[in-house]
C-alpha cells in the first residue's frame, strides 16, 4: 500500500481499516478525517480494527487516529502493525499504547484438543487451532486461519468466507489439498521433499505459496 493510503472494509466484527500511515502521522490523520467526512454517517457507531502496514506505529499516531475516528462515532478497538515478512503475526500488535493486543480480524477462535480422523470435519467462521493431527480424509474449514500443532495430512480451507489474508500453519504441512479463500493448491504428484519443520501457507500474488514458518520477532 502506498504511504498515506487507506481503505475500509466491513466485516462481521466491525470495520477493518487497512492503511499505511507513513512518516507524517498528522498528515495521515488529516487525510483520514477528510475521508471520514465524505463518508459521513456511513460508518458510524462501529468498532474499528486497524491494520497498518508500517513496521512501527508510534503511540501519538495511534492517539491521533483514535481521536479522529471518535469524532465520527467510530471506536478504535485494536491496532496491528507488521513488518514486510508475512509470518503469521502480520496481525500481531506491537505498539505500546495500552489499547491494543495481538488480534486477528476474525476474533473468534476454536481450539480442538485432539486429532481429527478421516471423515471428521470442522467448520467454523473464525480461526481453528488443532492440538493434534489432521488425518487424511479429515477436513478443516475456517473463516480465519488454521493452525495445526501436528501433522496436517487432510484438507484445510482457510479464509473460507473470502479472506485471502488467511494462512494455514502446521508443524508438518502435508495436506492432500490446501485452500485459501478461493484458491486451491495440492501437493505435487512426485514424491517431493518432506521438510521436518513447521511451514506456513498463504496467498502471494494470487497463488498459494508455502514457506518455512519462523516465530515472530518479540515485542519491541
Amino acid at each position: 500500500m502506498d504511504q498515506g493510503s487507506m481503505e475500509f472494509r466491513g466485516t462481521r466484527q466491525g470495520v477493518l481499516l487497512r492503511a499505511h500511515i507513513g512518516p507524517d502521522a498528522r498528515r495521515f490523520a488529516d487525510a483520514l478525517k477528510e475521508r471520514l467526512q465524505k463518508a459521513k454517517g456511513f460508518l458510524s457507531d462501529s468498532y474499528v480494527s486497524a491494520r497498518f502496514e508500517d513496521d512501527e506505529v508510534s503511540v501519538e499516531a495511534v492517539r491521533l487516529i483514535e481521536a479522529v475516528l471518535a469524532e465520527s462515532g467510530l471506536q478504535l478497538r485494536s491496532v496491528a502493525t507488521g513488518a514486510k515478512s508475512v509470518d503469521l503475526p502480520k496481525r500481531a500488535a506491537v505498539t505500546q499504547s495500552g489499547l491494543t493486543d495481538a488480534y486477528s480480524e476474525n476474533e473468534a477462535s476454536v481450539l480442538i484438543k485432539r486429532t481429527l480422523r478421516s471423515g471428521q470435519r470442522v467448520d467454523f467462521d473464525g480461526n481453528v487451532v488443532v492440538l493434534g493431527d489432521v488425518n487424511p480424509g479429515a477436513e478443516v474449514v475456517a473463516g480465519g486461519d488454521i493452525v495445526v500443532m501436528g501433522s496436517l495430512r487432510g484438507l484445510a480451507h482457510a479464509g473460507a468466507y473470502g479472506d485471502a489474508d488467511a494462512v494455514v500453519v502446521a508443524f508438518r504441512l502435508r495436506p492432500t489439498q490446501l485452500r485459501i479463500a478461493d484458491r486451491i493448491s495440492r501437493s505435487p504428484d512426485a514424491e517431493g521433499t518432506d521438510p521436518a519443520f513447521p511451514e506456513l501457507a498463504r496467498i502471494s500474488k494470487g497463488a498459494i505459496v508455502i514457506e518455512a514458518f519462523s516465530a515472530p520477532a518479540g515485542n519491541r
Partner: protein
Amino acid sequence: MSGQVIVVTSGKGGVGKTTVVANIGTGLAAAGHKTVLVDADIGLRNLDLIMGLENRIVYDIVDVVEGRCELKKALIRDKRVEGLQLLPASQTRDKTAVSPEQMKELCQQLREEFDFVIIDCPAGIEHGFHTAVAGADKAIVVSMLEVSALRDADKIVGLLEASELTDPYLIVNRIRMDMVQRGDMLDVNDMTDILGLQVKVLGIVPDDQSIIVSANRGEPIVLDNRSRAGQAFRNIVRRLQGEEVEFMDLSQGGLMLRLKRLVGLAK
C-alpha cells in the same frame, strides 16, 4: 460373573475380520474359556463357512430377535472345540433385520453365559456397523498395510470413539514382509502414526496361503501348528488373556531363506 463382548471391525471389506473372529474364538475356547461367536453380517454370512458349520444351521440371529426361537436353540456347538458356540447370521434377510437395541439385548443375554462374546462386524459404516458395535465393551480393528485399508481404519476408529468404544485394539493382517522391506508396502509404524497411540497393536499376522485352504476346509488356522499365520493368532489369543507375548519376527522364515542359511549364503 459377566463375560466380555468384543466386536471385530474394520470399515474396509476383505481385510480378514471373519478370519480373525474364527481364529480368536477358536483359540480362546481351546484355552478353556466359554466362547460364543456372533455373525452380525446379516445377508452375507461367512462365519459359518469359515468355521465349517454351515450344514448345521437351523435357526439364526434374526429368528432369535424376531421371537421365533429361543437363543439357545439357535446356538451351534463347534465340531472341534469344546466350549465354543456360534450364533449364525441369516442369509436371506439383510442388515435392517436387527436393530442396535436388539443386539445390545442379545449381548446382555450372551455375556451371562459366556466368558467371551466375539462379534463379526460387517464391512461399511452404515446400519450394520452400528448394530454390530451396539453391545460391545471393546473393539478390535483389523487392517492391512495398504493405504485404503488404513484410511478406512482411521474412519472406523473415529466412529468407535464416537460410540465410546475408545482405545480399540489393532490387528495388522496379511503382512507381506518382503514387500515391506522393499518399501512396497507401508509398515506398521506408518499405521500407528495415523491411528494414534491409543490404538494398541494386538497382533501382526503374515499373509499365508494356508488361510485360504483353511477357509475352504472350514478349519480355523489357529489349530494348525505348522502355519505362521496360525502362530500369529495363537499369540493374539495369549495377549487377549493378558499375557505379554513378543511379536513374531516376520522377516525370518521361508524355505529359501532357511536353505540359504544352511549353506551359508545368508545370515
